[in-house]
């Protein structure tokens, strides 16, 4: 980032190449809309580019980057909260998702690949719904913890809370996921 600050355009291209996939994935899991996630990721890079002259390496670059991304995602979710409630968050699970934990018992012999695919799809859908159901800040904490593998200290800075508050937030989030995914958790344990 210091090279970008010095005006090295090539370094910005390297940053783009290195962080575009983690950013798009994080934002996609936050807002659940691919196009919107890409728009937000673009906005993150533009903000990084605009702020390059004022960049001070007081914290890790990833902390700064994901702080921008998290704030953008939370603002975007806030802006579209009512609309999203209608189409996703508060909608009941679809029939096939509700049956997801039952599917492994109904595997048909004739089309094992198709059945297996459907089972996996149902499991993913259930996991996705469980993540979506989390309050936004808990969701961001889980995504940063699980998929970006950031330190607790870094995640706390991104979410602007203390480290102990973050641990408590994460505990509550994983507890909610444990309850929500109980059928799959029970399968995993056996």
């Amino acid at each position, binding site marked *: 980032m210091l090279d970008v600050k010095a005006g090295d355009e090539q370094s910005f291209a390297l940053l783009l190449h290195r962080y*575009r996939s983690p950013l798009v994935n994080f934002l996609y899991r936050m807002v659940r809309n691919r196009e919107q996630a890409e728009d937000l*990721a673009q906005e993150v890079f*533009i903000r990084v580019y605009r702020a390059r*002259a004022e960049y001070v390496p007081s914290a890790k670059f990833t902390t700064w980057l994901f702080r921008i991304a998290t704030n953008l995602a939370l603002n975007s979710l806030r802006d579209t909260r009512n609309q999203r409630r209608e189409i996703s968050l508060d909608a009941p699970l679809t029939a096939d998702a509700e049956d997801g934990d039952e599917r492994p018992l109904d595997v048909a012999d004739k089309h094992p690949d198709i059945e297996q695919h459907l089972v996996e799809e149902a499991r993913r859908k259930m996991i996705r719904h469980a993540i979506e159901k989390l309050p936004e800040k808990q969701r961001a904490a889980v995504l940063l913890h*699980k998929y970006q593998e950031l330190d607790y200290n870094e995640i706390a800075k991104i979410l602007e809370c203390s480290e102990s508050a973050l641990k408590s937030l994460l505990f509550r989030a994983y507890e909610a996921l444990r309850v929500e995914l109980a059928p*799959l958790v029970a399968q995993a344990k056996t």
Partner: protein
Amino acid sequence: MSCNRMESRILPYVDGRLKLSEQHEVETHLAACAACRVRVNEFRAVTGLLDEMPQIEPSGAFDARVRARVAAEPAKQSWWAWFAPSPRVAFAASLLLVATIWIGSRPGPVDSPVDVASKGGPVIIDANDLPVLENFDVLSNFEPLTDLPQPVPSDDANPQDTNQQM
């Protein structure tokens, strides 16, 4: 260690991010607490389930769109850029300097022969000035002009002066 205190340690324990001493404390508690043992196993199962979520790849046009937006960004000049040498400013400054030197090196305005004569200095007459001087001589010795009344003092003049005249 109590079960309540375990709440802040279960996840770091599952992640393997606890210090060695903390890890021993947790394991001692887990050996004695079945409920926390179950919870640890279920947290592990949850993190395993989250691993099943597929990654997505940014679309092919993503980089191009970011580059296009970066290219469209207006060039941002820092405050210090004001002090950076600019060809236009340097050219303008040079022109100003040359003009100043040229104006400074020019001889000052020459006193007319009339001005010189009024100052009592020696009059050097240029042949080109002769027609003007002739007109000056005619006007300065023009008798009818001497018959004209003296200028009347204005109303603003000091009244004491008026009294004295009377």
